[in-house]
């Protein structure tokens, strides 16, 4: 069943309610009072008080309450101002619900609520794309808006922004990109993709970083507000390596980040950051260097930028940049060996890091099975496995979790 959100018509307020503007003797508010007609019993609460109450409720409750009346539905999912207030409050109180896409079997998604005690529910979501279009994958998300699409430049006709909680869906027009070729003439058919909120302009930007020529990147930027693409040239800061495929960049502090694996094994990798507001590149050093090993970026659930290193001998280290932009503030948050947790890492199975939380917990998923484990890392002691969660089987499908499948539940929408 399609879930395309239609914008409400002006009759959203319903025939039985008349909106009349009354001036309360209040200094602050621009309140609008809906005087209830005589048919309605109950308290004649002014709308701004209803909004105040609603603003504190979790998203699941609010989505349910969109069925209360047309007016309530309008406030909850069609009023960007209400969504913004709700998000601000949730960020302040740290009550945002975290979810992870665990299955995406076209045209369905499933997402799992991450709760500290692993009590979260799995919900079914239907592809927001119109039935004739193929459903895309989640690339990254910001403030509850998920960017759907694919990173292959030849395939960018299906980019879209989707809020899985409200059903808000907006197609992004495809950019016209000249696909670069490497020196051997092969198409470099991928881009670093980033998506984030720019508070100074109250805008969301989608960014594709593409190799341009030998000294420059081409950065394609789409502003949701302006509803158009533009391209800028930005010079390389150091020799980038486009032979490593990077999918989605990590958003933190208003910039998107990825690890630039440089050409030449002896050259340590660094972090590239593209500031969404300034539209400029920056480079930051990594805390340590483990040659020939995997490094991935993550963002801590509490907000700081982290790097996950998988070293030889099946060890992992997670470092966090506790003060953004200050290389000296890199701190090793956790380190553990898989051998320390035989009950989790029994068969040398590959695994993926799902979350890193502030208070020393990480949640991982084994790639070969549908199990999640929570591991608590104490500084001096051995790590402890403190929880296990088994996802229900979806026949013929083993879910592949990546960091980009993480999103939060919000009411945010950005209509054209």
């Amino acid at each position, binding site marked *: 069943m399609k879930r395309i959100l239609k914008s409400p018509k002006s009759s959203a307020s319903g025939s039985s309610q008349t909106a009349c503007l009354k001036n309360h003797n209040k200094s602050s508010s621009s309140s609008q009072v809906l005087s209830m007609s005589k048919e309605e019993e*109950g308290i004649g*609460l002014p709308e701004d*008080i*209803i909004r*105040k*109450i609603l603003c504190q409720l979790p998203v*699941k409750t609010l989505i349910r309450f969109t069925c*209360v009346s047309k007016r309530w539905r309008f406030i909850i999912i069609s009023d960007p101002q209400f969504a913004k207030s709700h998000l601000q409050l949730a960020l302040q109180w740290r009550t945002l619900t975290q979810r992870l896409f665990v299955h995406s079997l076209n045209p369905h998604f499933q997402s799992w609520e991450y709760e500290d005690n692993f009590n979260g529910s799995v919900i079914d979501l239907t592809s927001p794309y119109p039935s004739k279009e193929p459903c895309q994958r989640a690339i990254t998300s910001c403030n509850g808006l998920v960017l759907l699409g694919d990173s292959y430049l030849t395939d960018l006709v299906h980019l879209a922004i989707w809020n899985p909680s409200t059903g808000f869906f907006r197609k992004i027009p495809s950019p016209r990109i000249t696909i670069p070729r490497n020196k051997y003439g092969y198409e470099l058919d991928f881009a670093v993709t980033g998506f984030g909120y720019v508070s100074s302009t109250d805008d969301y930007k989608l960014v594709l970083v593409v190799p341009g020529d030998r000294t420059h990147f081409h950065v394609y930027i789409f502003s949701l507000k302006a509803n158009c693409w533009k391209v800028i040239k930005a010079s390389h800061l150091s020799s980038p390596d486009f032979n490593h495929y990077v999918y989605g960049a990590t958003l933190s502090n208003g910039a998107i980040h990825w690890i630039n694996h440089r050409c030449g094994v002896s050259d340590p990798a660094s972090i590239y950051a593209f500031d969404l507001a300034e539209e400029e590149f920056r480079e930051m050093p990594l805390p340590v260097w483990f040659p020939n090993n995997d490094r991935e970026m993550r963002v801590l659930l509490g907000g700081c930028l982290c790097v996950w290193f998988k070293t030889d001998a099946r060890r992992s280290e997670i470092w966090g940049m506790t003060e953004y932009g200050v290389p000296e503030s890199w701190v090793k948050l956790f380190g553990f060996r898989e051998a320390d947790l035989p009950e989790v890492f029994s068969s040398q199975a590959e695994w993926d890091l799902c979350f890193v939380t502030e208070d020393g917990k990480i949640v991982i998923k084994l790639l070969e099975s549908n199990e999640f484990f929570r591991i608590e890392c104490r500084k001096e002691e051995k790590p402890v496995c403190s929880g296990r969660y088994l996802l229900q089987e979806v026949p013929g499908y083993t879910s592949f979790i990546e960091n980009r499948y993480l999103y939060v539940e919000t009411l945010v929408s950005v209509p054209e």
Partner: protein
Amino acid sequence: MSTSTDNNASITQESGPSAAVQDIQKKIVVRTADGEVFNLKEEVAMEIDIIKTFFQEDSISYETVMPLPNVEGWEMVKVIEYCTKHVELKHKVDGYKERKAFQALFVQNLSTKSLLALTNTANYLEVKYLLDFLCQAVSEQIKNKDVDYVRELFGVENDFNDEEYEQVKAEAPWAHENLNNDLH
């Protein structure tokens, strides 16, 4: 307690008629919709912006009885209770736990419907911190409730027809599942 009564008594005796006048000036009188009359201490009355505005800005004498036609007697009792506590805690350095304990007791015997009525009153009387607290308390209580309950509580009419309602509900079935519907 007895010491202060003694003090009051001694002050009245020593100061004579001027003290009696002082006592009257420190009270503000309001009358609620059901005809009940309340004497509020000035410092508590000033927490209620609508009263503060009435007396201070318009320089009305404290002898006037201010009518509050939108407020019921029981609501006034609760508002006075909250504001009195608020004033008391203002002077305390670490009143967090005490405030929390008080707040829990404050809402304990109120139905959600009464809480909502009180919220409306706090809004009308313009007591911001009480309004903030009550909104939070109401949201806590309705967080896991279903659509019918909320409609009844807020007095909102369902303007969806059956087909529309089913359609809206079907957009997010996950939002209607796993509710802990307490008895209400």
